[in-house]
């Protein structure tokens, strides 16, 4: 898929995120929107996956360590054909398979249940280790939040991944600089993120999470890196794509009301039309 097509798809995925969270009347739009381009790139360009065969053995694996941005993952999977886009409206409803946080038992395309911050990276490490033990070529991608780096288990996992030289593992840090209580550097700074991963023997790549050229270069570099795991520190804008949500910690975990939903969808539709005229 070419860059313009990726941009169009990311815009569709953003519409799905806003629609899902609006219908759920709760959820996490801010981080879902900041990571929407990362999701799009992974599922439409980078990863070896098959929506018709979600469990195929040699597929690349994805672990959403920051599980609360499930709407971002769900909207991507739906738009990629794993399940109907219409079902996004059932997010968080009783009886729906679209749980508030990813549930691998019931959602096609979800490789790992997650939600409790700090735990996903360890699981991704286990998957990458399994591939190495079996001489399999699949790769494992894990998306973490930047605030999530405050969890100690992340660094246990990083230490092990570096020690074992898991070059089939790519950690992506969605670096939108905000967590529930405010700026990550004010709450409990994880910076410098690059130096920390470097110290754990990671190859560090900096990228712009909302620019497909930058993402393409970053994932290519990760693919070419041998003998050590890679981390892509992806600078992003929380709430990206919806003007009133952008860079606002308050939009970490709340749903838009009727009026806000209308404004958000109009903005995204306009952005989509502009992309179509390119």
């Amino acid at each position: 898929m070419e860059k313009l097509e990726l941009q169009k798809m990311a815009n569709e995925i953003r519409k799905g995120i806003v629609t899902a969270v609006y219908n759920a009347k709760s959820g996490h739009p801010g981080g879902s929107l900041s990571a929407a381009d990362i999701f799009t790139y992974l599922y439409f360009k980078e990863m070896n996956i098959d929506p018709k065969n979600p469990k195929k053995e040699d597929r690349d694996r994805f672990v959403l360590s920051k599980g609360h941005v499930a709407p971002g993952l769900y909207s991507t999977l739906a738009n990629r054909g794993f399940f109907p886009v219409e079902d996004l409206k059932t997010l968080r409803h009783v009886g729906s398979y679209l749980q508030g946080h990813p549930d691998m038992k019931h959602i096609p395309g979800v490789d790992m249940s997650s939600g409790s911050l700090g735990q996903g990276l360890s699981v991704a490490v286990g998957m990458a280790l399994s591939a190495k033990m079996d001489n399999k070529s699949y790769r494992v991608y894990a998306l973490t939040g930047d605030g999530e780096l405050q969890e100690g288990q992340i660094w246990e996992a990083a230490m092990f991944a570096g020690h074992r030289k898991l070059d089939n593992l790519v950690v992506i840090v969605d670096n939108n600089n905000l967590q529930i209580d405010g700026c990550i550097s004010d709450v409990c700074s994880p910076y410098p993120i690059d130096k920390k991963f470097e110290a754990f023997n990671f190859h560090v790549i900096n990228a712009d999470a909302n620019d497909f050229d930058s993402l393409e270069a970053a994932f290519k570099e990760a693919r070419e890196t041998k003998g050590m795991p890679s981390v892509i520190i992806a600078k992003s804008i929380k709430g990206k794509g919806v003007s009133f949500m952008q860079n606002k910690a308050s939009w970490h975990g709340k749903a838009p009301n009727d009026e806000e939903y209308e404004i958000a969808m109009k903005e995204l539709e306009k952005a989509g039309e502009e992309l179509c005229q390119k």
Partner: protein
Amino acid sequence: MPEIKKIATRESYGKALAELGAKYDNLVVLDADLAGATKTDTFMKVFPERHIDCGIAEANMTGIGAGLAAAGKVPFISTFAMFAAGRSFEQVRNSIGYPHLNVKIGATHAGISVGEDGASHQCNEDIALMRVIPGMTVINPSDDIEAKAAVEAAYHHEGPVYLRFGRLAVPVINDNPDYKFELGKGIVLREGKDLTIIATGLEVYESLVAAEKLAAEGIEARVINIHTIKPLDEELIIKAAKETGKIVTVEEHSVIGGLGSAVCDCLAANVPTKVLKIGINDVFGESGPAKELLAKYGLDAEGIYKKIKDFLA
């Protein structure tokens, strides 16, 4: 009872892993810098490429186990019960239990019989913690033979299993040709009509000795070995309550949330019966040789005998 062979169930765990490893390529063993103590070094010597030392990072080891299982392996994650069930509780719940991944948790050094290390290392809460996780199977074998059988059963069972092992060498009591391990099935080791002692782990042997002492006084106690605490053999327990009346549970674990609580849950709902729960009475332990601690906390045969006598009086 005549002098019998004694083996710590953690030794049995290591041996069983090495034996099963030869049969099953997808069996992998994880450890957190305690391979010598958990006895997974027995497996490591034979299959070094399938033994993964995660270092002193139990939460991460638990997650790595989940990832390996998600990729098709059958991992046995191994550490002390305190860290497996205690420190890593949330990882076990969310990364293994909730997705119902095929991870086996080999928890050694459980209970007060860890001994000299004292209260910080004496995990008397793990059965309670693991039992409450939906879909978790909880096994507490009584001796070497049962421990090995339990490890094999755990390998073949699809889903998460918690296996509890001890540090102390304990008598081998299941050394007979009729012995058969079946997940979720209790074993009647001694018939009796006056009361039933339901025991688990190393307390099965102590209960058998206590039952002999009672028999010498004309009190016939039925003794049931409950190696699988979850799922519990409710049928066998209800039958015993109906036939013998009084029930005594014995476990090297807190009386809150363990075997005793599980049995009470079952009986209260089916056949309300007077139950005496013998275990650790809501206190932390202390340092000392295992045997002396078991005596001090009333968990040796003598202590069990005395408590049952009071119960019957």
